[in-house]
């Protein structure tokens, strides 16, 4: 298998404070990789840097072998990296359909309509209310829309930041099932989660991020069994 995304020694700083220090990890094509860690560990900052919203201070980000560090956000999306941000960040005053079309903003092919329909098939509730404003939907529905919107650019790598945030356990399960489906369809996923249990159960490979660097890594089920992980993140021990 080949590495789709490779983060090498990435350091991101806000002034004197380094939120991410020399972090390195690899996302192989077709895998789900998750970053877990405590609050303030630098996970969100890492994703925002990969997608070009922040500038790295040091290190490199390789996507499909090409460096995308220091490229503008729109170019990175164009290269095939979609970022479904923390808190969903839908365009609340626009309709479901407009949100999806914005997700396909960079595409010029004529498959957009088909893809919109595919999202509606996947999440029928969105299709039924496609002309409603996105801000009127429930948290879970909004998360579906956010994922659907990110998928509209037909990304090769989908990055999700806390998709289970604020959702009920049932809705969380539904979102995670969706991610498994997306993987089955061939999408590579980089997942950032506080919900370590669900995330590690789902992923092929996990990284534990602490204070801006990776401290542990391994296949998801191994990490799940690791006593340190269980002690730190699953409230055991």
């Amino acid at each position, binding site marked *: 298998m080949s590495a789709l995304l490779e983060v090498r020694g990435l350091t991101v*700083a*806000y*002034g*004197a*404070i380094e*939120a991410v220090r020399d972090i390195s990890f690899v996302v192989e094509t077709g895998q789900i990789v998750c970053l877990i860690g*405590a*609050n*303030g*560990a630098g*996970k*969100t*900052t890492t994703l925002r840097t990969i997608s070009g919203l*922040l500038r790295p201070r040091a290190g490199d980000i390789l996507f499909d072998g090409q460096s995308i560090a220091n490229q503008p956000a729109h170019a990175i999306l164009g290269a095939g990296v979609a970022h479904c941000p*923390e*808190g969903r960040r839908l365009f609340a005053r626009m309709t479901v359909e407009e949100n999806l079309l914005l997700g396909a903003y960079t595409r010029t092919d004529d498959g957009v309509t088909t893809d919109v329909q595919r999202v509606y098939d996947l999440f029928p509730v969105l299709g039924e209310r496609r002309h409603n404003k996105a801000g009127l939907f429930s948290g879970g529905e909004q998360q579906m829309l956010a994922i659907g919107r990110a998928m509209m650019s037909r990304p090769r790598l989908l990055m999700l930041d*806390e998709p*289970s*945030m*604020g959702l009920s*356990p049932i809705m*969380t399960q539904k979102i995670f099932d969706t991610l498994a489906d997306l993987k089955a369809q061939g999408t590579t996923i980089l997942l950032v*989660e*506080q*919900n*370590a*249990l*669900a995330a590690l159960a789902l992923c092929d490979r996990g990284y534990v991020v602490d204070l801006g660097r990776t401290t542990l890594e391994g296949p998801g089920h191994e990490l799940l069994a690791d006593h340190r992980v269980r002690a730190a*993140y*699953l*409230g055991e021990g």
Partner: protein
Amino acid sequence: MITKLVAGKPGLARPLSIVGGVLLIVGALLPWATFQLNIMPYPALSTLQFFDAPFGVPGFRLHVMLLGVAVIAVAFAPAAIRGRTTKALGWGALAIAVVNAAYLIVEGGGFGTITSAHGAFAFGAVVSAVAAVMAIVAGSAYPAAPPVTWDLKLAKPLEWLVLVLAYAALLKVVADTLTAGGRGGAANPYAGAVFLSFVAFLFGVFGGLNGTGLLRWVSAVAERHRAFSAVVLLACAFVLPFTEAGTEQWIYTATNIGVFAATAIGLNIVVGLAGLLDLGYVAFMGIGAFVAANLSGAASASLGVDLPFVLVLVIAAIVAGVFGAIVGSPTLRVRGDYLAIVTLAFGEIFFKAAQNNIAGATGGSNAIPGIPPLDFLGTPGDAAITVFGAELAGGVLYYLLAVVIVALVMVLFANLKSSRIGRAWIAVREDEDAARAMGVKTGKIKVLAFLVGAAIAGVAGAVLVHRLTTASYESFTFLESVTLLSAVILGGMGSIPGAVVGASLLFVLPEKLREFSDYRLMLFGLALVLIMRFRPQGLIPDKVRRAELAGETAEGGSLKEAEERAVAEQERADDERLGRTGVTEGRS
């Protein structure tokens, strides 16, 4: 771009700066114009008098030479000060070279003037400019060092002596700046060039001194002896009429500067301290002016009363202050940009009302002329007086009044700034919501800023109108508000010396650059744009304020970083909030 070539090659810096310094001296000694001087009467090739002086190295060429010597000297100074100082000296020299070269080209008829023509060679300007660029490049090639601070404490009398010398030097600089080049106009087309190149020299020198840390040290000394330095400064201001700047014309200019500097400091309270953009500020000055005009026995004023001047000042301040509070009252509800529009609207309403002679109080298009001169203990304000056997020019009493007012306003500003109220203003400026959360009554405090600022402008307006003897609505246009705002911004928001320097420059330059008077406002506009782009913190930034506008924090770090730090903290806070839910779900 060139600086990139040498960046990180500190070994090149010293040789380069020495060569630059030597070339500056050479450039100063070379001829600067290809034609001979004083061979025929004006306006032909004879008027370049500022080339003509003792030793063949007059005015600006002497300055270039001095800067060159300084550049060489700095190359052997302690490493920490080399970079900044050399750069500042270089910029000063470059500005002198460019200003004079531009004037020579325009007045002398083309590029031949500063290269070769009529069989003569004159590469002084070119050589100096190249040398100056070398100095700048060398300055940036020196390894970066943090700003130098001197940890030097002397005995009290010695420190007092330092202050006296420093302020005496300042007085000399002010007098020289005022008179440099004389008054501009058709009869004196080089006033602008002489003045600008003198100012460029000063910038080079002050920038250089700042680089050595001397200025910081002197201001620290002044800070240690605040009362003493205030007295010396005031004394210097009173001595100005005895210097070469003591002619009626320059005293008049200095008076205007004083009045507008006081107004600018008032505006600085509103904009610089409280962070409320006021685009109609000159209206308060106008209100003060018309109040004073009506109460001071002008024949054409409809009221026809003649009150003592001190009382007039108080009434002008109160009336303007009340209007200030009224204009400020929407600030209770309105924020930021919208407030700017409200104040702009108020300024326009005032202008319209004054233009239409509202309530017969402004004279409309006839204005209120014939305001009698002020009476200073029996001496009319516009009379010449004799002090200690020295004949002082007419209007000097107004000048002294302006000095007193500026001094009082400065004291008021400084006290307010370090008071509870001042801190509340700064808090409101930095973050209104946070300020409110800390218990600051933001509404009251903002209205108070408007009130105080307006009252100061009212006083300044009352003084101005006596000096002008006519109160006309035309003196109080939107563009005057813009000019005052420019003075505050140019000098540095929230900074007292900044406001004074800003007002001085904006009111002296038009005197010197009369041939450009048509372009004055256009250049203002351009200057505002350029300042915001390249030096938003102004010439003499306030230490705290620098953080906000300059992309530089008080400690000298980059603003962008500070901003990102704030974002990081926000993110951490978010994570924390989310973290809790995450952990609970993990447990379940």
